[in-house]
């Protein structure tokens, strides 16, 4: 326990919603410093928050990251471009397809590889399925943080399971897909699988409706989430927050629209924006995004052409990925991952290994804003705010 210091007092007075105690009170109280994590049930992994509490109110919160650091970037700099692909699966292990997408996009940009049409469509389908998986389980885990005893998360996992079956069927693995290749895909998608995806896309709205009946209008959820952890628009932009977090704060920024990478500019979809930027908006923006993803999936499934699954330029490297040497140069490729802007920066010196490789991990950058959102809120809110950011520690710590 630490006694309260002057600096803390000033931070408390500057923050909104903070119930400052009666300065005339003769009761001497102390603040309580607690370590939330790294072995805490709801820090989504090995993440630690040094929280100073005044009663139940958070006066300061310092995120401590790095418990899961695995040297991802250095490892990638010491192996061939293609060999990094399975490592990107392990960044954000909920969304390996999108991670693959980002890395493939970056190297294709670096080496100026044209990707066949069918590949683009399959990639979009896989990325949007990943978004469904991620958002639905993010909401489930958010509810777990709110104290619902696993029911929403298990409903979410029931649907996630069906999509993971698709991933297993096309790529061979449920989570560590390693499915994309530079200029193509590991293997083609069979018509039977496309039919299954169509089945999922048709049934998913019914599930979402049920999920919303369970959650959206629930008074306890509204009480817990509305006006909690407000992230102001300006702060969100300044802190380079991306993804649903940014859009919940009302900023119309979606890389699928801004860059129009792959074939996203061919699809009709909208970008849901939140009016307030609190936890509830983050929850609801994710629901709306899933509905938009379903629209994209519907169009992509209708428009998917037949054709090659590997670019001509990359055919020689299918059997010997080690020999792939992109030209000297640098490239930054980014995709709209379910958690935000997932960027890969790569510098090539003409050898088979990248000279510099960097990942702009959305979870990591979104996490930096945690203290600003939590200060002045209750401890229970801090947990919920962390849940609403939707982090995966594999990506935060890399």
């Amino acid at each position, binding site marked *: 326990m630490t006694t309260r210091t002057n600096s803390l007092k000033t931070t408390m007075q500057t923050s909104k919603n903070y119930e400052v105690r009666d300065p005339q009170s003769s009761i001497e109280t102390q603040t*309580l410093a*607690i370590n939330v994590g790294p072995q805490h049930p709801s820090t989504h992994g090995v993440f630690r928050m040094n929280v100073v509490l005044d009663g139940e109110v958070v006066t300061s919160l310092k995120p401590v990251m790095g418990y899961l650091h695995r040297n991802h970037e250095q490892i990638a700099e010491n192996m061939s471009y293609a060999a990094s692909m399975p490592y990107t699966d392990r960044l954000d292990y909920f969304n390996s397809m999108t991670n693959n997408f980002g890395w493939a996009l970056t190297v294709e940009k670096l080496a100026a590889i044209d990707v066949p049409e069918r590949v683009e469509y399959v990639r979009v389908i896989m990325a949007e399925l990943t978004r469904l998986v991620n958002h639905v389980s993010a909401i489930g885990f958010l509810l777990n943080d709110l104290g619902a005893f696993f029911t929403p998360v298990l409903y979410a996992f029931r649907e996630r399971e069906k999509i993971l079956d698709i991933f297993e069927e096309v790529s061979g693995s449920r989570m560590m897909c390693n499915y994309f290749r530079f200029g193509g895909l590991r293997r083609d998608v069979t018509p039977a699988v496309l039919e299954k995806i169509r089945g999922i896309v048709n049934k998913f709205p019914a599930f979402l409706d049920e999920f919303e009946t369970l959650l959206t209008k629930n008074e306890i959820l509204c009480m817990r989430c509305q006006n909690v952890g407000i992230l102001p628009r300006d702060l969100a932009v300044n802190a380079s927050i991306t993804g649903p977090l940014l859009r919940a704060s009302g900023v119309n920024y979606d890389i699928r629209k801004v860059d129009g990478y792959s074939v996203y500019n061919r699809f009709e979809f909208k970008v849901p924006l939140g009016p307030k930027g609190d936890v509830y*908006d983050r929850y609801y923006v994710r629901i709306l995004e899933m509905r938009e993803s379903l629209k994209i999936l519907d169009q992509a499934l209708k428009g998917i052409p037949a054709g090659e699954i590997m670019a001509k330029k990359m055919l020689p490297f299918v059997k010997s990925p080690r020999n792939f040497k992109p030209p000297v140069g640098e490239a930054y490729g980014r995709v709209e991952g379910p958690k935000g802007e997932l960027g890969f920066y790569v510098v090539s010196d003409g050898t088979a290994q990248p000279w510099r490789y960097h990942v702009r991990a959305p979870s990591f950058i979104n996490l930096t804003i945690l203290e600003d959102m939590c200060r002045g809120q209750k401890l229970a809110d801090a947990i919920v705010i962390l849940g609403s950011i939707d982090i995966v520690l594999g990506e935060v710590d890399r």
Partner: protein
Amino acid sequence: MEFMDQIFVNLKSTVLTLAGGFLPPWAVILLCAAISLGVIAVIGPVTMMYLTLIERKVLARMQNRIGPNRTGPWGLLQPLADGIKMLTKEDIVPKNADRIVHLVAPILIVIPALLVFAVIPFGKNMIPADLSVGVLYFLSISSTTTIAIFSASWASRNKYSLLGGMRAVAQMISYEIPMVLSVVPILLVTQSLSTGAIVRAQGAYGGWGWFVFTPWGFAAFITFFLCAVAECNRSPFDLPEAESEIVAGFHTEYSGMKFALFYMAEFMNAFTLSALAATLFLGGWQGPWLPSWAWFFIKTYALIFIMLWFRGTLPRFRVDQMMNLAWKFLLPLSLINILVAGFWHFANPPLAIGGSIAMLWASGWIFTRLNRDYTPEKRTYLFGE
């Protein structure tokens, strides 16, 4: 029918008659008490053990799972396996803990949970001790749980425990008040504090004169049940042991059998509070066709099912919202309800029904409006292109 209804009563009197043949009278009285005690001492823990299984099964079914099914048929031996596991686990006491209080607290918490079984009317003539102050006894004994919880949290010397203990004290004391006040209308109407008399007062219309069917009874039942859920720290009021926030709250530092005792107390409280709610509002053992004890257990388990259902559906309140609910909504509502009960008693039937429903509805609406900060906002979501 009558035979089935009184089977346990007759069994006990047969035993006592047989024993009376060769035992002195004072020993028969002792034996009579011992039988009741023995039955309670068995029913309490067994109820708790099987409530854990029922809870896991019901929650699993709500979550599209099967639940425990490996130990015995339908997992019926699961509680035994859990018990053995708990008993054989290492008992860890933190280095800086207050060892004596740390040891005493779990024992202290089980005692009131067992004591309150004494005034529960399990069936017709099946009340272990028909005290004339039964309800008061129940409420006062069960409120001592707070002390045990707080001593457990303080003795653990753990910050999470402390937070949980503080929450527990605040919550249990706050919810005690609307809970007691919601019982008052019943006491006014029945003019008795005895649980047996309260059940007998609900015997009208062939066993259907339950107080829950009156407007004030319904409002009091809702209030009482919500407070009961809060009293035994169950979801959505499980803040003292909120696992997503403060790890396990007041029993963070407990392991093995000590932890099991906390668990036991929680489930026995859930059972006894449901039983009391059934007694006070749902007519206790009153009901047609079935034996009285069957009715009692059906009603109690229905209420327990609702508690589990809450747990399977609802997220947790935040600490300030929970206090608001108690002080700004349930407390005034229960006060109004006392007034409504008096009105019901003295007014003529048509006016009584209409008037009390109108009064409750209006006050409920007013309290909701006054607590507008806590009602959901309407939001519109724009779409960017």
